[in-house]
Each structure stands twice: as C-alpha cells, then as structure tokens.
C-alpha cells in the first residue's frame, strides 16, 4: 500500500497544479491515472493478502513460535498444534510427483520440440494444454474412483513383492495414501512442465543444433548435449513452477491421501498435507487458536510458493526472452 502511494506522488509533484489539471482535461493524464490506479490495486491486494495472513495467524505464531514446525502432535481438542506431519506429507507427495512427472514431461517436451513435425507438435501440445484446464476436483474424482482401486489391487501388492525390501514399499495397501496423492499430482503438473519446457527448447537457436550435427553428432547427441543444456534454465524453471503447483494443490490430494496426521516412511501409508488440512478443518475449527494455526499453515504455503515461483519466473525469463514471459 505504501509503495503505491510513493509511486503516485512523483507524478503529482513534478508538474505544477494548473498544468497538471489542464493535462487531465485533455484525457491522456486521466486515462493514465485511472489505469495506474487499477494496476496499482494488484499491489494493494498482494499487500493486503500478506497482512491478513500475518494478522490472522498472530496467536499461533506467538504461542508456538518455531516449535510449530518441529513438533508432530496435532490435536485440536487438547490444543496442541504441530505442523510437522503436514509439512512432511506435502514434501513427500510433491517429491513423488516431481520424480514421476519430470522425466515424463521433459521427455515429451523434447519430442514435441525436436522430433515431431510442427503440425503434429502443435496439435499434441493443444491437447496437453487442455489437460492443464481440467479442474482439480475432477482429477480428484478420477483419482478416487479409477486410480485408487488400481493401486490397491494390482499395483501396490506388485511393488511390495518386487521392491518390498525398500522401506517405502512396505505395509498394507489401502490404495489411498502418499503414493496415490503423488501420482495424481504428477498427472496434474505434467502439462505445465511440457508446455514451458517445450517453449524453452523451441527458443534455442537453430545454429546450436546445426553446429552439433555438423561436427558429427547424432540427432539425440545434439539434443541431449547441446539443446537441452542450452535451455536448462527454462526447463528447471518449469519444474519449479510445477513444484509450486504441487505444493498448493488441495482438492485432488485431500480426496486420496487419507487425511491422517502421521509421519510414516511407506508410500503406501496414509498422510496429510498442508492444503488438505486447511480444507478439512477450517470450517470445523471452533477455537481461535485452531483457526490461527491453520492460517499459519496457509502463510507457510503462501511464502513457500512465492519464493519458488519467484525463482522459476526469473529462470524462465532468462531463457525465453521472446514470447509470452517477456517483460
């Protein structure tokens, strides 16, 4: 809020008052001022959002301090609030999502930018971008009724038989749990990785490819050793954007993670994430401290995604200077 006031002032000061009014009458200055106010309103909204998040979580922040993040007991009845299980669940599901979606997404982006003929590439990209428009509650429904039964019966027992020596593939298979949430998150973020990575790859100058081919590289060698490294910042940026989305995804995860605040190593186990606990408990919370703790979780989520998105935007900006991300 203060920022916008400061920025408005120089314009007012630099012209003497009558001159300013006459320019206002000509319309241009008025249009400038009006649109400026609307543009500045976004800064106001951002500042207001931060203020409300801090203000509504003040009770929990004062009462629990940093211990909030390192204790794992979450019991609204006895007034104990430790966020560790939710942080753990958010990190685990996002990690699973990225492990699955990054190879798939980057691979598909390489195909779409390097190998597929432009028309096919555009058509496939169009379909993939439609995936990004599917509402998350629909992913949740598909995950609940199509993915979870599949996990419960053939997939988790199979993983347990073949890779069961690993602690992450042990325990009973309920279907719901970290693995189900990670899988559906992977499906949800893959379109973002593909779309942005493809754009970064397409922005690589053709001389790079031609140079590699001219010294005798195969097409794959040129792609993997020259084109991909050239576009790496954009690709990493796309992964960061995907991570930010995975961290904040609410509905689909709530529907398949099981919603139990435990910290268990097995991916078959049920868990909880930050957005899921906000979604489930916010309307039912009666104590102020409970609400406050949930808002603090929201604040953590907000700050986390702001940092990750900020880095991602800078990286994407650095690689695709032309086109949509241009500033």
């Amino acid at each position: 809020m203060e920022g916008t006031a400061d920025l408005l002032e120089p314009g007012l000061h630099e012209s003497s008052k009558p001159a300013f009014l006459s320019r206002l009458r000509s319309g241009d200055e008025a249009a400038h001022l009006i649109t400026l106010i609307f543009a500045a309103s976004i800064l106001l909204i951002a500042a207001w959002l931060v203020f409300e998040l801090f203000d509504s979580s003040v009770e929990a922040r004062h009462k629990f301090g940093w211990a909030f993040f390192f204790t794992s007991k979450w019991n609204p009845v006895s007034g104990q609030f430790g966020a560790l299980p939710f942080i753990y669940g958010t990190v685990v599901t996002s990690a699973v999502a990225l492990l699955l979606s990054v190879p798939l997404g980057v691979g598909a982006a390489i195909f779409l930018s390097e190998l597929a003929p432009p028309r096919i590439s555009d058509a496939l990209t169009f379909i993939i971008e439609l995936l990004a428009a599917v509402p998350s509650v629909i992913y949740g429904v598909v995950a609940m009724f199509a993915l979870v039964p599949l996990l419960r019966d053939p997939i988790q027992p199979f993983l347990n038989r073949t890779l069961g020596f690993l602690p992450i593939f042990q325990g009973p298979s309920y279907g719901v749990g970290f693995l189900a949430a990670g899988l559906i998150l992977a499906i949800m973020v893959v379109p973002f990785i593909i779309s942005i990575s493809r754009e970064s790859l397409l922005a690589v100058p053709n001389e790079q490819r031609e140079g590699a081919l001219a010294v005798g590289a195969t097409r794959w060698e040129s792609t993997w050793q020259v084109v991909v490294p050239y576009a790496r910042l954009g690709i990493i940026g796309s992964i960061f954007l995907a991570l930010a989305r995975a961290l904040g995804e609410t509905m689909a995860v709530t529907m398949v993670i099981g919603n139990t605040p435990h910290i268990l190593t097995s991916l078959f186990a049920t868990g909880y994430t930050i957005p899921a606990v906000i979604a489930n408990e916010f309307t039912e919370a009666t104590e102020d401290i409970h609400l406050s703790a949930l808002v603090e979780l929201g604040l953590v989520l907000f700050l986390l995604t702001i940092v990750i998105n900020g880095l991602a935007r800078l990286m994407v900006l650095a690689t695709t200077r032309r086109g949509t991300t241009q500033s």
Partner: protein
Amino acid sequence: MTRHRWRNLVNEVMFGLTAACALAAVCLLFWILGFLLWNGGKSLNLAFFTHLPKPPGEIGGGMANAIVGSLQIVLIASLIGIPIGFLGGIYLAEFGSGPFPFFVRYTADLLNGVPSIVMGLFAYAIVVRPMHQFSALAGGVALSVILIPTTIRTTEQFLRAVPQTLREGALALGANKWKTIATVVVPAAVRGVATGMILGVARIAGESAPLLFTSFGNDYWSRSLNQPTSALPLMIYKYAISPYADWHRQAWAAGLVLLAVMLLLNISARLVLSPGAPRN
C-alpha cells in the same frame, strides 16, 4: 557392435522414449474424459439440471441450485476481476515504463502462482469474518483475486501484440493517446483479450478449494448473495467423498458436465476466437 551403430541405436531408442512420453501425456486427457463419459454419461439426466439435491440416502435429485450458484459466484468474480484486470493490463501495455510496471507484472505473476486455497483464507478474512456469514459474495471475492492477475497479464500480452504502426497512424491523425487506445488498439486486440478473459473465467469456474470456506455450499436455493451458496465443484467434492453410491453416480455426472463446459470454453476460445494468437 561398432561405435557408430551403437550411437545410432541410442539415438533411436531415446527418441522413441520421448515419443512414448508425449503419447502417454496425451492419453491422460482421453483417460479422464473416457472415465467421466462412461460413468457420468450413464447417470446424466434431465433431473440433474432441474432438481434440488435429495437428502442423504434417497435416490435421485439433481444439482440445479449448484449450477445456478456457480453462475452467480463466477459472475460476481468476473464483475470484480475483469474490469480491474483489463484496465490494469492497459496500463502495463500502454502507459507503463520504468520499474513500477515491472513490479506490478512480477506481483501479478507471483499472485498467479499462489495456491487457490490461500485466496480462500484471504476472502474468509476480509468478507466472511466481518459479515459473520458464508456467502456467494465471499466466494466471488475469493475467485476474483485469482482472476485479476491472469486477466491483467493476458490483456497486456495481447495489447502488446498490436503493431506499433497502428498506434502511430492514429496519433498522426491527431488522436489523443487515450482515444488511440480506445478506438484503435483495444479493438485490434479484442479477440485476443476476450480469449484471455474466457480462459480466466473458465479456470475460476472449476475452482473448489477457495469456495470451501467462503461460499460454503447449500442444499437448497440460496435466497440472496448474502447466503451460503452451492457451486458445482463443491457438490462434486461433497458427493465424491460421501459413502453413498447414488451420490458417487451424481458426482460423476456433475464432473462430466463441468469438464464438458471447461473443454468447450477452452477449445472455442483458442480455436474460434483467436486462431494463431500467442498462448498464455
């Protein structure tokens, strides 16, 4: 195997794998679509669009109130979000220079990436808490906060795509800057700008997380904008996590309707309104 043949083999295998990745990604959409068509298509009937929900355990009923509620909430969000985003976008494209527009743009991009549930917390704090009431209004505010950053950025982007020579032509004829913008630049970009707005509205229409504790949901018609209001995505969530088979059936039908609307809006916006326009 010679080194040459090995390198060629790697070439073919790796590109084959990337093609498989692309194919898998494309298949995901058809898998989701197929699932909803198969399961939801069987349960979709006229009652779904015209009836109120039945109490738990009773078979039948529809989601007429949720459809109307969704329209109300999205309309409120659009009335708030589109003017702000549109005018802000004009500023960024036409007037902005120096560090201030960069700051606005970056803030818009960052807000765009904030999880939608956080916007729900925000709307709860600024609307629900002072009014002591869940309401369609609060839901609309929550969704408008998601809509503003996308509208501001797409408007800017499409206005920037208008050739500079058009502006110069108008100015050379003696038009003011704002007249140039209003009569030349905006009309030239109107298809793209409209596309951006439709895509933005389509996105918020599918949001459910920010509505959980703003519009809250309602099993009956809500009599005013100050009352808890149901929305289609909320009903899908509520019905899908319920233990009743008939509600699952209706959740699939509602999912199909929502997905069909989304795809229709997206495809028509991208293909019909602005073929070849820059994507966002």
